[in-house]
């Protein structure tokens, strides 16, 4: 009976739950799903992390290469993010070139990176206009169940913290790079932005950390990125409207989540034994 109701009238099915301030998976409206984080599990990557937020799972692998910096920004290194949603991750994803969801997520992460919200790109530079690191950050979704951006940002930050690269220095006289494979280093000053996604329903109901099903049914979505207690990015791609009181309420929820995620990342990335350089 319940399954029939759900298939035929999914929105009504959901609204009966929401009216009673609960959700089909047993969460209250503003509750987040359980998050787990594992750093450094991919040996072939220079830095890696696996994040699970409820059923959504993301693997982030970072490969580093040395290149000459871009001509118009000689003092900056590059971080190239790429979100992939292979057809393995959900039955709703078709194989072929990346779809709109994947491209929009890539664009979202790229904006965070280019605005120095993740880290200061100048730290990646080894020698002005000669050599800098380029970090290819591939975010592979292996199970898609809503709140993709939350998991992506978390995986990216954890993988960057897990990064371990050979120490490379530039020799002025010889005009070449000297590297020592034995010595490993990470990067200082990786910030800890945390994205929290919320779904909005027509009658002003807000829910945290929506699942894929909830995202499909909802009238709108909003992603708030915070670092500590300050808002760094507010992404609301259309959908139904939101007043200021609601925004304030969501900010408080995001702050709670931010604290939890920061703790999780610190726990997962601390015992690496890799000394970050200045």
């Amino acid at each position, binding site marked *: 009976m319940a399954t029939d109701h759900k298939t035929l009238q999914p929105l009504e099915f959901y609204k009966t739950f929401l009216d009673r301030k609960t959700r089909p998976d047993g969460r209250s409206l503003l509750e987040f799903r359980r998050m787990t984080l594992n750093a450094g599990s*991919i*040996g*072939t*990557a220079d830095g*890696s992390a696996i994040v699970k937020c409820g*059923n959504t*799972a993301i*693997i982030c*692998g*970072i*490969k580093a*290469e040395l290149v000459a910096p871009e001509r118009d920004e000689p003092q900056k290194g590059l971080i190239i993010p*790429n979100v*992939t949603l*292979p*057809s*393995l*991750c*959900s*039955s709703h994803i*078709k*194989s072929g070139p990346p779809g709109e969801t994947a491209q929009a997520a890539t664009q979202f992460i790229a904006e965070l990176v280019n605005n120095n919200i993740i880290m200061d790109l100048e730290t990646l530079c080894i020698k002005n206009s000669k050599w800098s690191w380029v970090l*290819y950050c*591939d975010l*592979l979704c*292996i*199970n*898609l*169940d809503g709140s993709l951006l939350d998991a992506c940002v978390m995986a990216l930050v954890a993988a960057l913290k897990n990064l371990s690269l050979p120490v490379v220095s530039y020799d002025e006289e010889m005009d070449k790079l000297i590297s020592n494979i034995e010595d490993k280093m990470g990067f200082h000053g990786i910030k800890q932005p945390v994205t929290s996604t919320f779904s909005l329903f027509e009658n002003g109901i807000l829910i945290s950390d929506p699942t*894929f099903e909830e995202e499909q049914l909802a009238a709108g979505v909003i992603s708030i990125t915070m670092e500590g207690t300050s808002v760094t990015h507010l992404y609301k791609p259309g959908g139904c409207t939101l007043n200021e009181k609601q925004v304030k309420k969501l900010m408080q929820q995001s702050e709670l989540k931010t604290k939890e995620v920061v703790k999780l990342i610190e726990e997962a990335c601390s015992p690496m034994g890799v000394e970050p350089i200045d």
Partner: protein
Amino acid sequence: MSGNELLSDQGLRIDGRKPNELRRIRCSLGIFSQADGSAYLEQGNTKVLAAVYGPHEIRGSKSKALHDKAFINCQFSTATFSMGERKRRPRGDRKSTEMSTHLEETFSAAIRTELYPRSQIDIFVEVLQADGGNYTACVNAAMMALVDAGVPLKDTVVSCTASLVKDVPLVDVNHVEQSGGSPELVVSILPNSGEIVYMSLTQRFHIDHLSKVLDTAIKGCKDIGAILNEIMKGHLTKLDTSLQAS
């Protein structure tokens, strides 16, 4: 790297294994909620994910539908960070397409496709970390995912590689041995009937060695099959008890 270094005077391989020793196999089933069946498999440092969707109606062009059996659609993909060098294209290159075709052929032989005419079964595999024997790990992982999905099989499929160094056959080749220039024989079998469903050889060796190397590979397949069988049984009993409890 010459053959001498791949096998020490004491008869040990570069990673310390004996010639007939497999790498450690770890596998877990039913790890995803979205897929109908899924599995994660580690064979030494090779780590592979597999997901199965289906049987469902044909997606995309209807012309792919077969009137008497199910259409098997496989996609082999390698994560960009899975190898020493960054891979530019995770899927769609020539090697991946070839792998996908081989997987389709292998599983068409094992799945009872005649039960699902005009439908489609999707098998997606993703190599997360590559350390030799990618194809075999993919076959084994995909098979476990099929079992998890409950797709009817004629027989399980297991796959293993073998090589030949200093006239000694080696089982379950890793990346160093594979790229060290030694030949690699990949075999997939149906262990109960002992039928070979897939076999390929890179590099050359004298035909006299073939039976020896092939036997090693088949022995490896059967050993892997036994290990996977245990894991399968463990998973199914756990499922059974949890079903009874509820």
